[in-house]
C-alpha cells in the first residue's frame, strides 16, 4: 500500500512536534516555550484526529491548547519574564548524569515502542496493521456517509450491557458507532463512578487554586535568596 496522505502528514507533523518540543525546553524566553507547547498540543490534537479519536482531539485542543496553555501564557505575561540568563543548569557532572539518564529513558521507551509485536508483549491484543475500515478520515471529503445512529434508549441500554459483559462484543461496537458515541457509551456505563469522582477532583482543584491565588504568598517572611 503506497504512502497515503495521512502518512505524509504524520511524518510532517511528527517532525514539527519533536522540533517544537525540543524548542520548548531549550528556548530562553518562557513565553515562546509556552506558545511552542501550545503548538505541540494542537499537533497532538491532529494526531488524535488521525487516530479516529475525534472527540478527544477536539477536547485536547479546547482543554490543553485553548485553556491550560492560555493559563500558562497569562501567568508568564503577568510575571513579565524576559529572556533568562542561564536557563539550563551550568555544565556539571550532574547535568551529564541527567542527560545520560534521559538518554536511557528515551532509548528504553523508543525501543519498547518500536519492538511492540502483535501480542503486545503479553499485555494487550494489538494489531499493528491498519484497523478495520475506519468510518472517516480527515481529508477524504467525499465518503463520510452518515452512519445510522439509534436514538431510542432501550436499544442503547442493551448495547451498554453488552459491552460490560462481553468485551469481545466491544470490537463490533467499535466499528458500528461513531467515535464520540463509543466513548460516551463506555464512559457512562463502565466508568460512571470515576467520571463523578473526577468532577469532585476538579472542584477540589478549583477551591485549591483560588485559595492559593488569594493568599498573600508564603507563610513566613524569608528575605529573597536567603
Amino acid at each position: 500500500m503506497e504512502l497515503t496522505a495521512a502518512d505524509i502528514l504524520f511524518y510532517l507533523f511528527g517532525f514539527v512536534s519533536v522540533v517544537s518540543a525540543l524548542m520548548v525546553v531549550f528556548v530562553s524566553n518562557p513565553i515562546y516555550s509556552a506558545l511552542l507547547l501550545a503548538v505541540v498540543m494542537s499537533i497532538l490534537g491532529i494526531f488524535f484526529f488521525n487516530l479516529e479519536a475525534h472527540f478527544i482531539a477536539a477536547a485536547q485542543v479546547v482543554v490543553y491548547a485553548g485553556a491550560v496553555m492560555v493559563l500558562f501564557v497569562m501567568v508568564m505575561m503577568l510575571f513579565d519574564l524576559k529572556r533568562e540568563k542561564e536557563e539550563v543548569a551550568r555544565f556539571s557532572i550532574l547535568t551529564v548524569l541527567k542527560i545520560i539518564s534521559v538518554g536511557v529513558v528515551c532509548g528504553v521507551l523508543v525501543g519498547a515502542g518500536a519492538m511492540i509485536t502483535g501480542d503486545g508483549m503479553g499485555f494487550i491484543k494489538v494489531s499493528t496493521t491498519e484497523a478495520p475500515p475506519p468510518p472517516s478520515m480527515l481529508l477524504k471529503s467525499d465518503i463520510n456517509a452518515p452512519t445510522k445512529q439509534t436514538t431510542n434508549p432501550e436499544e442503547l441500554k442493551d448495547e451498554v450491557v453488552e459491552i460490560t459483559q462481553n468485551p469481545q462484543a466491544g470490537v463490533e461496537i467499535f466499528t458500528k458507532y461513531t467515535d464520540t458515541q463509543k466513548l460516551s457509551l463506555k464512559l457512562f456505563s463502565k466508568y460512571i463512578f470515576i467520571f463523578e469522582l473526577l468532577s469532585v477532583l476538579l472542584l477540589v482543584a478549583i477551591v485549591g487554586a483560588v485559595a492559593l491565588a488569594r493568599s498573600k504568598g508564603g507563610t513566613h517572611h524569608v528575605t529573597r535568596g536567603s
Partner: protein
Amino acid sequence: MQDQKGAHTMLHVGLNHYLVLSGVLFSIGVLGVLLRKNALIILMSIELMLNAVNLSFVAFSKYAQNMDGQIMVFFVMTIAAAEAAVGLAIAVAVFKRFKEVNIAHFENLKG
C-alpha cells in the same frame, strides 16, 4: 515490521510509529524537568510528558480497538488541567512572595 504488504511498509504508519513519537516526546519532557531551572518551564515539561502519554493511550486505543484508551485520556486531561491550575496558583503565590521563579533558590527543605 513483519507486515507482508511490500517493502516500504516501514513507512506506513502503524502503532510503533506513534509509540516511538510518544516515547521521544516523553523523554524531551523529562529532559525539560531535569534541566530547566524555571519552575514554570518544569510545569510545562510535565504537561508535555502527560501529552506524550495521552498520545500512546490513543494509539493503543485505536490499534487494540478498545475505547478504554480514550477514556483514560479523558481522565488524564482533567487531572492535568487540575494539576496545571494548582501548579500555577502555587507558582503565583511563590512569585508574589519571593519575586523569584528559579527553583535553585527554594532549597530550604534541606536534609
